[in-house]
């Protein structure tokens, strides 16, 4: 019948206690770890980035110097050749010899040619068929005529392959001619990208309009636009973070002087920070290990803690149970002090009446009048027996309440039983017990607990009114919203305000030593809490006290659930 499953609720309580303990312990132990780890990582990250940028910048600075020197050397070489020989000498075979020497030594130049002032190729040594070409309209031709020495950007030209040239103007008499050398594109690209770091690190050059001048290994053919956004000229080295095809790169860039090319070293972020991640991985692993150990420890500690609490709870429960039994014995004993009196009085009457009958019957002749007396006495004996029966039945009902598990009970029924017993004691004490039982809903509670609560209150009330005029204890029940309220009202001595706050404290008593345990109200309080109710006290010294116990009523059951 009882729908409550306390075992489950209790189990859930310990589970949630366990969960909370573990959560808190893990949180407490990991939070500093996470904080320290995070701060360390951030500092490490910042430091690492600075180191990487410095490395890249140093490399680029060095690389720019060497590339500038290289291009300078080439230009000097071409210029020297142009000024060392006359056109006639070169044409006679010196160019070919000189070029062979240069090419064998360096492998830098692809071809070399001499162009006259009208742009006509006079002489060409190289793999392409360019001997008859006229360069009058070529940009580089105009530039070299103008400047004397010119290093071009990459362009396709007549050979339709990307290349760049170094051209020198030589004035001879009233005319001039131009010595032009083509730099080996592959050689130059390799030279530019000779040094790299990591998996994605590469060096390349773009011109002032952002067009690739060298090959790249990871996207970007020569003469295609690089998309590099920071083309404004600057001195020294600049560092940018640039997105290319959805990847993020750390770019270090510096301008060359001649030609005005931008030398760029780029490396993917992920690659740049790979060593950092590798270093962090061990940290993270350590953290995870710590987390696992902390969690395991937390579980062990929490389990032990919960077990201790559980054990303490069980012990407390056992102790409470013991206390309940003791308290009940005491309370019932106190209340049934009146029972002896209530039985002995009718017994005395019965004894007297039977003596009276014997006296009358022992006459030699029983008169009609005596016979009526005898019958009347017999009837009175019957009345007294009935009186005794009421008391013993009441006692029986009263002490039969032993059920501690909750069931649906009619509070008034318990109050009726109890007041029968209470009246017996009250008569002895010279007090009266009044009951005002209202229409109250059923409550879901242990009958024993409810009985014990009220018995304690009534006993206290009878103690409070003892020896006072018009001593009266009222037991009242009424409905209060969805709850049931029991008031035990007395017109006794009242409770001193100083004591009011202590009355529910175990072992607090104002009774003489040996007469009160100080447990009655403490037990009441515990039981009321156990039943999910509240207990209140209202007292005026010298005028009386009212204890009000409010217990939750049984919630209206769904129609399907009938009585069992």
């Amino acid at each position, binding site marked *: 019948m009882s729908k409550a499953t306390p075992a489950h609720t209790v189990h859930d309580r310990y589970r949630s206690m366990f969960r909370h303990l573990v959560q808190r312990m893990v949180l407490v132990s990991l939070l500093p770890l996470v904080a320290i780890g995070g701060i360390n990582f951030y500092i490490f990250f910042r430091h690492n980035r600075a180191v990487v940028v410095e490395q890249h910048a140093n490399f680029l600075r060095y690389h720019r110097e060497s590339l500038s020197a290289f291009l300078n050397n080439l230009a000097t070489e071409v210029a020297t050749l142009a000024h060392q020989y006359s056109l006639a000498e070169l044409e006679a075979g010196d160019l070919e010899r000189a070029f062979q020497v240069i090419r064998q030594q360096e492998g830098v130049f692809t071809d070399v040619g001499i162009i006259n002032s009208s742009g006509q190729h006079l002489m060409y040594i190289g793999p392409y068929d360019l001997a008859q070409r006229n360069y009058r309209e070529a940009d580089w031709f105009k530039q070299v005529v103008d400047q004397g020495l010119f290093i071009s950007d990459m362009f396709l030209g007549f050979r339709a392959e990307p290349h760049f040239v170094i051209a020198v103007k030589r004035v001879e008499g009233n005319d001039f001619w131009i010595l032009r050398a083509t730099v080996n594109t592959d050689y130059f690209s390799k030279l530019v990208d000779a040094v790299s770091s990591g998996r994605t690190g590469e060096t390349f050059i773009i011109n002032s309009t952002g067009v690739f001048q060298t090959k790249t290994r990871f996207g970007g053919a020569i003469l295609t636009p690089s998309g590099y956004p920071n083309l404004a000229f600057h001195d020294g080295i600049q560092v940018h973070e640039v997105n290319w095809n959805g990847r993020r790169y750390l770019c270090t860039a510096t301008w060359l002087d001649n030609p005005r090319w931008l030398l760029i070293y780029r490396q993917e972020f992920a690659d740049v920070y790979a060593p950092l991640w590798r270093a962090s991985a061990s940290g993270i692993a350590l953290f995870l290990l710590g987390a696992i150990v902390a969690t395991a420890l937390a579980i062990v500690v929490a389990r032990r803690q919960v077990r201790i609490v559980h054990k303490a709870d069980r012990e407390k429960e056992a102790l409470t149970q013991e206390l309940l039994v003791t308290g009940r014995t005491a309370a019932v004993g106190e209340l049934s002090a009146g029972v002896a*009196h209530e039985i002995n*009085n009718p017994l005395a009457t*019965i004894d*007297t009446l039977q003596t009276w009958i014997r006296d009358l019957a022992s006459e030699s002749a029983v008169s009609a009048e005596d016979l009526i007396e005898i019958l009347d006495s017999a009837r009175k004996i019957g009345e007294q027996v009935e009186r005794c029966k009421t008391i013993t039945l009441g006692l029986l009902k009263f002490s039969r309440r032993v059920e501690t598990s909750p069931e649906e009970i009619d509070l008034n029924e318990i109050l009726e039983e109890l007041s029968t017993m209470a009246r017996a004691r009250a008569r002895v004490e010279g007090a009266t017990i009044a009951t005002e039982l209202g229409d109250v809903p059923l409550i879901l509670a242990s009958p024993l607990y409810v009985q014990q609560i009220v018995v304690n209150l009534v006993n206290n009330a009878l103690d409070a009114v003892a020896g006072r005029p018009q001593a009266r204890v009222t037991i009242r029940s009424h409905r209060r919203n969805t709850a049931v309220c029991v008031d035990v009202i007395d017109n006794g001595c009242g409770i001193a305000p100083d004591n009011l706050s202590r009355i529910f404290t175990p072992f607090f008593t104002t009774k003489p030593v040996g007469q009160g345990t100080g447990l009655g109200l403490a037990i009441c309080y515990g039981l009321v809490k156990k039943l999910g109710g509240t207990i209140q006290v209202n007292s005026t010294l010298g005028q009386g006290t009212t204890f009000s116990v409010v217990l939750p009523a049984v919630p209206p059951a769904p129609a399907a659930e009938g009585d069992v």
Partner: protein
Amino acid sequence: MADPEKSLTRDDPGKSLTRDAVRVLLVDDEAPFIDALAKVLRRRGYLVETNYNGPAALARIAQEPVDVMLLDVKMQGMDGLAVLREVKRIAPAIAVVLMTGHLSCDDEAAALRAGAFAYVFKPHPIDQLVELIKSAQQRPRDPA
């Protein structure tokens, strides 16, 4: 219906017929008990009166004393011990036998200290009670 002469003769044949019958006052709020007891005692020759509470009994003895008083301890209003003390004050010659259905030794000691002749527990056999009344009436009197 009480016939003192007859009762005296039957109860105490050795006693002088000229002697006054013993006056007994029964005080108890348990009416059926003292009503029945009164009948039994009257038939045995006692002059019996009943009162159902302490103040009425005190008013009665203030008018005219009795020889023996059977007094219940636990009564509504004024209890037996209080009545006893008052009786001892206004009429110390009265022998008071306290009766109780309640089992309390504290009360017994207090009653004897207060001057009760005896303290008995209900139900007390009637014949013994009659004996007790007799010895109470014959006890050496306090100088009144």
